[in-house]
């Protein structure tokens, strides 16, 4: 009975869900000199959030999620470069559409497999896109990518400022908020419930007649679209795009970010991306090798002991405290 009411109430808004957004606005006023970096953090959060939908909720283990990030990034870049389409917001929509189409097409084909085969297929799809971008230099700039892209005012109202990154930051924050609302609605809907079911017990979901493949493909497509938006934001905020948006390092990186934060729990992406990016920003530049060593050891420790990341640890601490209080 208690569980049932909890289930019915779990989509309700809780007070602490305001915190990330309050923090997001506070950063805008508190760290005006770091907004360029903060924008990168927001982009990583969005990217990790999109991965959370497939990895954390639908339980699809993929090593090729950067394919969609890259598709979005290149869509916006190529639109600006070749077709003179400089308006950012419609660029986001175009990027989402392109990434969603690729996600849908590849999802239809790939999600029939699972396990190592699926891992390999997602990896190959991404590498394929990377090589394609590398080869068609006339369109994508090849190895060097497309530097020096410019974008016009957002919806004709707010221009990107090159020096302070203020409008970029607010634009990214607003986009993240919109995308987050979509994801939150999705995972708390009955659709999200059935995704969790697929993750937890595939056979049983088949047995009760749930359209497993359709659900997975749909989740994959939505996730691809969101990753595409993140990639588009990346190109717009930085003014360039290159092959690094499509590599294995980006795929593995975003997975690490999500796992460290805690997957399958909405706010893991926020915690993971912020912690990872801040640590990387301060440590990786000064001590790159030590950073890699520490990151590797952390990953091993997380895989062995703390499977739910930072938020998972916080959760179990809270439960323990509540348990002792009663």
């Amino acid at each position, binding site marked *: 009975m208690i569980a049932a009411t909890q289930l019915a109430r779990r989509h309700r808004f809780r007070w602490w869900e305001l915190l990330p957004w309050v923090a997001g606005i506070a950063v805008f006023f508190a760290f005006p000199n770091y907004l360029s970096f903060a924008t990168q953090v927001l982009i990583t959060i969005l990217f990790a959030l999109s991965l959370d939908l497939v*990895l954390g909720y639908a339980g699809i*283990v993929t*090593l090729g999620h950067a394919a969609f990030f890259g598709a979005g990034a290149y869509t916006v870049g190529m639109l600006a470069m070749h077709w003179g389409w400089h308006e950012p917001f419609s660029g986001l929509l175009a990027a989402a559409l392109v990434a969603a189409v690729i996600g849908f097409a590849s999802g239809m*084909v*790939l999600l*029939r*497999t699972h*396990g*190592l*085969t699926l*891992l*390999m*297929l997602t*990896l*190959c*799809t991404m*590498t*394929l896109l990377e*090589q*394609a971008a*590398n*080869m068609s230099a006339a369109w994508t700039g090849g190895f060097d990518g497309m530097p020096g892209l410019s974008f016009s005012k957002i919806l004709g109202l707010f221009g990107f400022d090159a020096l302070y990154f203020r409008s970029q930051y607010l634009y990214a924050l607003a986009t993240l908020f919109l995308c987050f609302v979509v994801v939150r609605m999705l995972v708390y809907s009955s659709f999200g419930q059935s995704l969790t079911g697929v993750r937890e017990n595939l056979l049983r979901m088949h047995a009760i007649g749930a359209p497993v493949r359709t659900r997975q493909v749909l989740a994959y497509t939505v996730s691809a679209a969101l990753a595409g938006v993140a990639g588009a934001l990346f190109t717009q905020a930085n003014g360039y795009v290159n092959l690094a948006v499509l590599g*294995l*390092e980006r795929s*593995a990186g975003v*997975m*690490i970010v999500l*796992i460290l934060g805690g997957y399958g729990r909405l706010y893991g992406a926020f915690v993971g991306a912020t912690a990872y990016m801040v640590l990387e920003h301060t440590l990786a530049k000064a001590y790159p*090798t*030590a950073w*890699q*060593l520490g*990151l*590797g*050891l*952390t*990953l*091993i420790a*997380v*895989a*062995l002991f703390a*499977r739910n990341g930072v938020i998972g640890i916080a959760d179990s601490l809270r439960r323990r405290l509540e348990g002792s209080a009663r």
Partner: protein
Amino acid sequence: MDPVSILLGGFASGMVLFIVSVGLSVTMGLMGFVNLAHGGFAMLGGYVIVLAMKHWGFLFLPSVALAFVTVALFAVVLERLLYARLYRATELDQVLFTIGLVFVMTAAVTLGVGPETQVVQLPDWLRGQTDLGFIKYRTYSLALIAAGVLLAIGIWLGFERTRFGARIRAAVDNRRMAQSLGVDVGRLFAVTFAIGSGIAAVGGGLGAEILGLDPNYPLRYLVYFLIVVSVGGLGRVTGVFFAALFIGVLDFVLKIYFPKGGTIFIYVLTLVLLLWRPRGLFGRRGA
């Protein structure tokens, strides 16, 4: 280039792929463990050979043997201490753990030896060219092919003709059944893991001439090793052999005729093949 030398060059790099990947195929087939750190053992082997020859005065062949032994011992320690805890874990945990392990290996090698590319000094008898009667070709490539073929025959014999090999085949085909017939799959796996990593170490050293050797080796070639294994089929030694040869030759040809991005065909081919046969060309339906 004439077709024969293209074929020989492709075979040589295919043999390197085979030597490095064969252990991965067997261990993944046995336990279904997604081991992305396999290339790391190959890299460590390469470094052992370089260090042994440069600083400890070993000759070429003894240092190859040393690489096999040290890396196999190191692998079995890691397996008992860490890998064994994750056999029942999800793929995600395994991926995470092995990526972490790759990072640690890369960082450790960078700290201990340095970030620069290492060169394996070949002995005189492996340098220069050899006249085969119909063609003159690099001695080292020919030696690689010979070593690969010998190793393949050895592994095949071990697999098909020994009791130990029969146990492995049984466990790959049906782990539970093998267990209930009294096969200690855990120990089997530890031994296989050690031997497989040792062979990979030899491959990392012998293949340094072709693949290079630097701290980023495990991540750079990860996709290649995985392609060879998944195309060949998990736990299939002959499958991995033919897949490695095929991909080695294809890669060699593509790099000559389409130096810019020709490798895209390998990925397309892998995609199509895995969609057509998710268990690889030689994979059998497991239990």
